[in-house]
């Protein structure tokens, strides 16, 4: 049997919850509507200027586990053929050296570490990964000299530019927050922009024939 106090408490709680019900519902509806409007208009993107240094090629960049030296860029045009559409790729040449003295582990240059910065507010373009010695995502060994590598970016078939910008991202050797229940053993994670390298591309036509 409930006591009178409890019954009164329950009644008061009932009133408090229901008193401004309409206002609450309206508020929630407004928040949902606002979220939909923001989504429809292209999301919540904070416009910020560039906060990392911009370098002219040839440039050496140390980012995370790798040390890069960017040398040249090519705009490779594949003309339209009977069987395939015209295609253009942006190919960037660089040397990469594994400098992971923390874990001393072989690692490949993954595709999200190098990005093409088209500029003009357009989205960044991920690369296809470090292609060294003819092997895509070749694992670079810690302690060995730099390897010649290249990477490709997908661009529009009519892409042309006097100058291209390649963003270099670097991972950080750090631990997760232990208070969230995660292990405090550090590992390579959380890539952040380190530098932007400017290269002057040359146009190359790849018609499938050997030179």
């Amino acid at each position, binding site marked *: 049997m409930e006591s009178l106090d409890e019954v009164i408490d329950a009644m008061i709680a009932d009133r408090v919850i229901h008193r401004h019900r309409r206002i609450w519902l309206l508020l929630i509806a407004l928040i949902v509507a606002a979220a939909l409007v923001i989504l429809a208009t292209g999301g919540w993107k904070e416009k910020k200027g560039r906060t990392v240094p911009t370098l002219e090629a040839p440039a050496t960049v140390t980012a995370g586990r790798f040390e890069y030296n960017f040398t040249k860029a090519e705009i490779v045009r594949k003309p339209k053929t009977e069987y395939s559409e015209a295609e253009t790729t942006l190919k960037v040449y660089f040397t990469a050296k594994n400098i992971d003295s923390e874990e*001393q*582990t*072989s690692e490949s240059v993954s595709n999200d570490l190098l990005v093409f910065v088209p500029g003009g507010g357009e989205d960044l373009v991920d690369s296809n990964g470090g292609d060294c010695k003819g092997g*895509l*995502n*070749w694992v670079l*060994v810690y*302690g060995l000299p730099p390897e010649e590598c290249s990477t490709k970016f997908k661009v529009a078939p009519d892409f042309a530019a006097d100058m291209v910008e390649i963003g270099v991202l670097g991972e950080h050797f750090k631990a997760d927050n232990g208070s969230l229940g995660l292990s*405090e053993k550090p590992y390579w*994670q959380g890539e952040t922009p380190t530098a932007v390298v400017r290269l002057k591309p040359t146009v190359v036509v790849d018609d499938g024939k050997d030179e």
Partner: protein
Amino acid sequence: MKLYRPATILVGLLFVLLGGVTRLAGPDHVYGEDQNLKVVHGTIGEALQYAGSGSTVKVTRIKFARTIVSADASDDDKPFETNGVFVAVEWDAVRGVKDPDSFNPTLITDGGSVYEKVSDPSESRIAFPDAGFASTGVVVFEANPADLKGLTLRLKPSMLFNVYNSEIRVDLGVPTEAIAQQMVDGAVDQYVLNDDVTRVAS
């Protein structure tokens, strides 16, 4: 209406438990120390039990090489070269009834280096065949000649949960720097990688 109904308390408790579960689930960086891994040590030529699944792995031979090439490479394919040295580990795996956990082969050294297997050619791999079969093959690693002392093949199962498990460590017989240097000097010019060969386990 009561604010603290049993269901509310249960949901709260569930969140607390979920926080604990994240410690159990996940890769290396979530579950830090490998206290739940039993290490099975062995040497070349020894068949080693893999994670209690009835499967065994044996390293039959290791070869040092300056270049590697796939056995079915076309004329245009150049051999893969290295500034270091390639270590080819030839293996023989017998599959038990239970499907063994997948694993990532690495070479580890006393100097702390961890060498991953080369991404190309695709013949470089180590995997168990279907139950009742055995296979032989080769897995190739690119390595730094300056850090080869204590070269050990490590087969560590990739686990999602911290169940009790075991990993294999095969001593590849490089106890000193001098021996490592000798093996690097004696590296063959080219190593040809053949596909795995599967046979019926006897």
